[in-house]
């Protein structure tokens, strides 16, 4: 793998915690509040890493393993993405399946950890999480298939790398549809409004937050960082579609990456301030809608 990719990954790792902050700040400003500082999460992480941890008596090693698994899967997933817009550090035929598989593995661990506590609240969150995921995953794959059809390549590096840039002129419509549905998936997978409200304080309405109720100290730090990183990864996906950077020089590409991620975060914030949270039963419909967009994109590419 070349230097630029490493730098790109590094940048990703560093800027990740800023994204939720940016989104939150945008929301606050748009709703006329000051809101927490953009870099709040960094501080929280530092504080949490310094603390000890409290474990429920009912939990087992599954509970402790979850944060690590989540984080590792996300890091490995990042290796499969052409973060710098050209070439991923690791690529192989059908690695898009691996990407989805990694997300699933992380989810598996996290949700089991939630159930491990035996609390009905976390069970409730776990149930909602897997329900939403069951609809998000096919939608994600549909997006990937559309990209496969556009680029004719079966690996993420190809789908989001240089072939994509070449494809914009002839397949612009499809690509923008795919981008939009990817953005919806970003909202869903990272439990943002309209699927979930990260700022809520009523356990019964939470999804992601409620699963990790019992995590504390370093574990919670890992989890918070992980969710921020996941948001960033999806940001990279969206960017990869909308802002192909294959042709650009490394610094330009990286600059665009950072800027783009910022834009995505702002966009998230805008959506959150503009929309209300959907009723849970409507969430599948939202995701099916996202899938429909991708399907439409696919059909445009058929024949």
């Amino acid at each position: 793998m070349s230097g630029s990719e490493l730098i790109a990954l590094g940048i990703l790792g560093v800027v990740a915690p800023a994204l939720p902050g940016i989104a939150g700040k945008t929301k606050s400003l748009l709703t006329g509040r000051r809101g927490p500082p953009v870099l709040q999460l960094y501080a929280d992480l530092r504080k949490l890493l310094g603390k000890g941890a409290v474990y429920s008596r009912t939990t087992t090693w599954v509970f402790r393993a979850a944060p690590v698994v989540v984080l590792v899967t996300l890091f490995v997933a990042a290796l499969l993405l052409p973060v710098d817009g050209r070439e991923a550090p690791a690529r192989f035929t059908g690695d898009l399946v691996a990407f989805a598989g990694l997300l699933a593995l992380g989810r598996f661990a996290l949700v089991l950890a939630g159930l491990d506590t035996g609390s009905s609240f976390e069970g409730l969150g776990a149930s909602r999480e897997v329900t939403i995921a069951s609809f998000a995953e096919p939608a994600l794959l549909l997006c990937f298939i559309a990209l496969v059809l556009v680029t004719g390549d079966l690996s993420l590096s190809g789908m989001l790398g240089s072939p994509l840039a070449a494809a914009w002129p002839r397949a612009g419509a499809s690509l923008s549809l795919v981008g939009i549905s990817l953005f919806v998936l970003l909202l869903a997978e990272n439990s943002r409004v309209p699927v979930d409200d990260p700022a809520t304080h009523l356990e019964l309405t939470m999804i992601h937050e409620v699963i990790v109720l019992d995590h504390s100290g370093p574990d919670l730090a890992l989890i918070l960082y992980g969710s921020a990183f996941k948001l960033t990864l999806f940001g990279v996906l969206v960017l990869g579609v909308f802002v192909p950077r294959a042709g650009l020089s490394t610094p330009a590409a990286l600059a665009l990456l950072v800027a783009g991620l910022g834009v995505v975060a702002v966009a998230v914030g805008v959506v959150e301030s503009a929309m209300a949270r959907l009723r849970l039963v409507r969430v599948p419909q939202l995701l099916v809608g996202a899938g429909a967009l991708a399907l439409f994109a696919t059909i445009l590419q058929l024949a």
Partner: protein
Amino acid sequence: MTLVALGVALILLAGLAAVALAPRPAAGETLFRILFGAGCIAGALPALSVLSGATVPDLRLVPVTPFGPWVFGLDALSAVFLFTVLSVGAACAYYGLAYLAHERGHRAVAIAHLLLAVLVAALALTVVARAALPFLIAWEVMAVAAYLLVVLEHERREVRRAGMIYVVATHVGTLLLFALFAIWAGGTSDLSFSALAAHAPFSGARGGTILAVALIAFGLKAGAVPFHFWLPEAHAAAPAHVSALMSGVVIKMGIYGLLRTLVLFGAPPPWWGWLVLALGAVSGVLGVVWALAQHDIKRLLAFHSVENVGIILLGIGAGALGIAYGHPLIAVLGFAGAALHTLNHALFKSLLFLGAGSVIHATGTREIDRLGGLARRMPGTAATFLVGAAAIVGLPPLNGFVSEWVVYQALLRGASAGGVIQLTGLAAVVLAFIGALALACFVKVVGVLYLGTPRHALSTEPREAEPALIRPLVALAAACGAIGLVPVVVVPSALRVGSLVAGAAAGGLQVDAGAGPATAFTVGLAVSLLLGWGAYAVLGRGRERLEAGTWSCGYPTPTPRMAYTASSFAAPLLSVFRSFTGVRTHRSAEAFSTHASDPVLDGVLVPAWRGARTAATWVRQVQRGGLSVYLLLVGAAVVVSLLYLVVAGRHP
């Protein structure tokens, strides 16, 4: 081939030994263990060598019955199934020894061991048979032995019912196979597979009929929707190790049959490929949805077999379409994925069934809603079960992921190829859907069985299963991990099978599924998981860690009854599907539960049978004993034949 024969002989011998030494179980079971193991190894060795590219000569017996010689052979396709049969068979047999040990007093345990040996031997012979007669014989012996094992606990009514449904289904399948071979062979007297292959390609409707009959007959055995109705019943009724063998291996004989049919038949027409693909999609989705609705752990696992058969059918369908539309690469990948997933499913499904068996053994209940928190009581079982669950969901770096990845490749290549075949892309989406639902379902199972707190107070304090029950689990889990870690080793063999099935269409095309880089990925993932865990442990050292009760958001400490049950967990998903799966929910003041009824069995077959019975009883009025009636019937026969005489006389 002689090695295989030796292996089969040894396995049968093991069974006989167990019966012969029934008075002294200890000795008998030791001998059984030794002979059975030896037999499995003897049979597995040639299978492995064939999978790695070697070839073994066929075994021809002089014709002792009509319809040509009895041929036995071992090609890559047979080899992968033979290996599956023997490896999983051994695990189940060993588990069975310990599992049935406590029943020695009041049940003919030795007979059960003999039957299991017969079953495994018959399975092995089924996959190496190369002529219609030995195939049919092995097939039926397998089915009957399986039936007798299913009704091992025949005092229970539902077991008898399940057995009845199963034995009828399988017998119908056998009759369809009669039809299949009869249609295929026409008037020729040689029914060896090579001779059958010589008949292809077929003109007109004959070929279509053959493929349709084959699909129904083998679909019945494989338990593909809508032929799945017998499967959950039978698998739930059987003892754990039998369920494991049936769900893992026996139903795979249907898959073997389909693939073998393709090998002999040559290129299928497109409609067949689409049909198989559709069946696969339907089986996959409905299988997992029905599984979500189950509370009986064994029924749940059984429905997941329907789901995985669906995944395998997706692979076969893609392969068939690949041949039909002239895309050898897709064909090879599809069949390879199907073959590999067959092996993988056999491994993790038997692992899961055996694990469930241990749980039932320890707790005395199959109701998952009554259980919980077993991970602390039975750590070994829990860990292996967790591996199996992750594997069946298709998570990297385990074997389920590898095979699904190959199937995905076939489907995606189909999507990116030109023409109608691009619709296979939708199948890929369905596959993703299936995977996500399976994840939901197994999160539910693992979470509710092993994690959290018990939902009900159990009569007996569950204890960890004895080592003899754990060892097979560990072995199977290890196998799942190994295959998942090094695709580069197994995928080429799978591709060999794939190109064998694709046959002429493949035309010696060298397929690289990218197993090398994939291996780098899986190994990398595994290593980084370990490193991450290590780092976490190191950094975590010396920190203060407190024990406390679960934070319950300010409510009083949660009682076990408050814990989230499987029914509640699955409810949101089921609410989406309730419309078309026959799942009903019952809400009562203090409890919420869902109940699933099988649309095919309870909706179609049972009513149809009732109707037939009523009709028959109505017709029976004839047999009311009146002598005059009897005589008049004879007279009627005379009159009718005389009329025929007149008619035939007119037009000689």
